[in-house]
C-alpha cells in the first residue's frame, strides 16, 4: 500500500520536472524514481519475508522434533528404493540411469506426500494454535506459503537422501547427469503439487486421518487422469481433443517427459499452476472456516 502511495506522489513531480529541466535530467530522474520504486518494493517484500522465515523455520523444526519425521524418511527411502529394485527390476533393465527409479514416484507419492501434508493445517486447528498464527501481523497467504514451503523442503531432504542411487548408477555405468538432475527436479516439483493438494485438504478438517484420505483420493484422481490405460479407454469413447484435455490434467502426463530428461515449458507451467491454485484455495478455505 505504501509503495502505491509513494509512486503516486512521485509521478506528478516527474512530469513537472519534464517541462522545466532538460530531457536528459528528466530521464535520469525517471530512472532514479524507477529504481527507488523497485527498492521500496524489495523492502516491502522483505517485510513479508521477515514474517515468512520464522514460520517456515518453526514448521521445519517441528518435523524434526518428532520421531515421525525420521520414520517418514526411512519409509520414503525404502519405498522409493524397493519399488525401483523389485517392481521395476532395475538390475535386469541394464540401464545406467534413474528412469525406473523415478517411474514409480507418482504412485509412491500418493501415500507418502499426504502423510507429510496432512498435519499442515489440521494440527494448527486441533491444537488451537491457528488462533495464534492468524492473529500475527502476517497475511494469510504468507502463513500458507511458509508452512507449504517448510513441508516441501522436508520432502526435498527426504528426496536428497536418495543420492546413493546416483552413486550406484555412476559405479555401474556412465549415466547422463543432465537427465538425472531434471529427474530429481521434476520429482521435487511434482511432490510440491501433491503437497499443495494436501495443504488444501488439511485446511478443510481438524482430523488428520480425513485430511490424509481426502488428499490421497484427490491425488489418485490426478494420477489416473494421466495414466495411459485410462487414456486408451477414453479415446474409444470421446473425441481426441477432449481426451487430450482430460489426460493433460494428470500428474503422470507431465512427469513422464521430465523423468526422461525432456523438460517442456508447459509441464513446468502445469505443476506451478497446480501449486498456485491449490495454495490460493487453501487461503480461501482458511479465510472462511478458520473458526470451526
Amino acid at each position, binding site marked *: 500500500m505504501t509503495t502505491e502511495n509513494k509512486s503516486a506522489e512521485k509521478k506528478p513531480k516527474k512530469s513537472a520536472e519534464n517541462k522545466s529541466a532538460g530531457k536528459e535530467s528528466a530521464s535520469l530522474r525517471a530512472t532514479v524514481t524507477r529504481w527507488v520504486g523497485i527498492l521500496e518494493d524489495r523492502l516491502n517484500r522483505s*517485510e513479508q519475508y*521477515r*514474517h515468512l*522465515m*520464522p*514460520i517456515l*523455520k*518453526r514448521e521445519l*523444526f*517441528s518435523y524434526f*522434533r*518428532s520421531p515421525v519425521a525420521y520414520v517418514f524418511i526411512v519409509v520414503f527411502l525404502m519405498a522409493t528404493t524397493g519399488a525401483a529394485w523389485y517392481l521395476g527390476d532395475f538390475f535386469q533393465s541394464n540401464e545406467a540411469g534413474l528412469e525406473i527409479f523415478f517411474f514409480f514416484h507418482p504412485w509412491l507419492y500418493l501415500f507418502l506426500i499426504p502423510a507429510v501434508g496432512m498435519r499442515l493445517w489440521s494440527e494448527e486447528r486441533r*491444537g*488451537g*494454535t491457528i*488462533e*495464534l*498464527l*492468524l*492473529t*500475527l*501481523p*502476517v*497475511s494469510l497467504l504468507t502463513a500458507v506459503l511458509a508452512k507449504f514451503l517448510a513441508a516441501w523442503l522436508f520432502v526435498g531432504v527426504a528426496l536428497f537422501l536418495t543420492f546413493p542411487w546416483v552413486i550406484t548408477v555412476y559405479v555401474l555405468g556412465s549415466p547422463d547427469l543432465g537427465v538425472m538432475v531434471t529427474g530429481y527436479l521434476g520429482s521435487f516439483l511434482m511432490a510440491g503439487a501433491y503437497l499443495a493438494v494436501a495443504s488444501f485438504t488439511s485446511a478443510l478438517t481438524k482430523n488428520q486421518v480425513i485430511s490424509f484420505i481426502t488428499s490421497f483420493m484427490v491425488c489418485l484422481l490426478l494420477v489416473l487422469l494421466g495414466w495411459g490405460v485410462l487414456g486408451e479407454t477414453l479415446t474409444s469413447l470421446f473425441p481426441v481433443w477432449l481426451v487430450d484435455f482430460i489426460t493433460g490434467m494428470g500428474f503422470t502426463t507431465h512427469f513422464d517427459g521430465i523423468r526422461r530428461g525432456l523438460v517442456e515449458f508447459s509441464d513446468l507451467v502445469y505443476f506451478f499452476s497446480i501449486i498456485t491454485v491449490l495454495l490460493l484455495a487453501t487461503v480461501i478455505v482458511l*479465510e472462511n472456516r*478458520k*473458526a*470451526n
Partner: protein
Amino acid sequence: MIDVQDLVKTFGSHRAVDGVSFQVNRGEVLGFLGPNGAGKSTTMRVITGFLPPDGGTVRVGGHDVRSDSLRARELVGYLPESSPTYPEMTVEEFLRFMAEARGFLGADVSRRVDRVVEQTSLGDVRRQIIETLSKGYRQRTCLAQALIHDPPVLILDEPTDGLDPNQKHEVRDLIRAMSAEKTIILSTHILEEMEAVCTRAVVIAKGKIRLDGTPSQLAAQSRWHQAVTFLAAQDDGGKWKEPLQALKDVDSVAYRPAGAAGPAAYTVFPAKGAVIQHQVGEFLREKKIAIDQLFVERGRMDEVFRGVTVED
C-alpha cells in the same frame, strides 16, 4: 483505543454476536461476563482480527480490523481461550518464535523474551518442553507470548482459567500492574475476579450487551446491595421478622435459624436504592436485641449475573 460499533457475527443461522457496541480507552480494564456461548469469545476473536465481522465496524487504535487488519493486529496481544502453544517446543523456543514471527530481529528478540519470562515468572521452566509443563505454566507461557511485543491492547480470554489460587493472584497482579498504560479486555466467569481487576464490567448474553457499568454499579443491581445482615446472639425463632418488615424503606426480611451455616441471622433487604442501616441499627437499640455482628452487604454479583442472563 478499541471501538466496536454494531458488531454482528453469524455462524450459519446462529447470531453469535448481535449488534454489540462499546468503546474501551487506555487505562481501562473491561471485564466481559456472560454464560458460555454468549458471544464473548467471538467478540474477542473479531477484535484480534481472527474472525472477520459480518456487520458493523471494529477499530483498534483507529485501524479497521477488516480493511487495515495487519496494522490493527500489530497493536494487539491475544491470549486465546484454550491458551494454545506448540507443545513440542521449549518455552524459550516458543517465545523466540512468536517474537521473530512478529518481525523482531537479533538481540531485540532475546531482550523481549527475557522481559516476558520475568513478567510471567517462567524463569524456572524456560528450557523445558511445553508438553511436559503443568496447565498453569502452559497458560502463563501463552500469556507471555501475548506480551512479547509490549502491545498497547491486550485481549485475554479467561486468563486465570485452570490456575490455582496463588497463580490466579499472580496473574491478576500482573494485569493490574499493566493496566495503567494499556487497554485490556478480559473475559471471566469468576465474579470476584471482575471486582478485583476490572474497572468496567460488561455483561453479555445471547450476543447482546445486557449491562455496561463499573463493577460496583453492577453490584448495585443486586437485591443484596445495601442489605443489612445481623447475627443474633440467641436464636429467637425469627420473632423480629414482622416488626423489621414494618420499618420504612424495607422491602423484605429473611431469617435463617441457627444451624450448620452459623448462628441465627436476619437479613433486611431495602427497597430499591434505599439505605436502611440507620433504621435497622436504631430498631435493634430500641428493642435491646443482642447481636454478635452487623454488616452491610455490598451486593452479590452472581445473583445479578443470573438475573441478567437467565431472564429470557
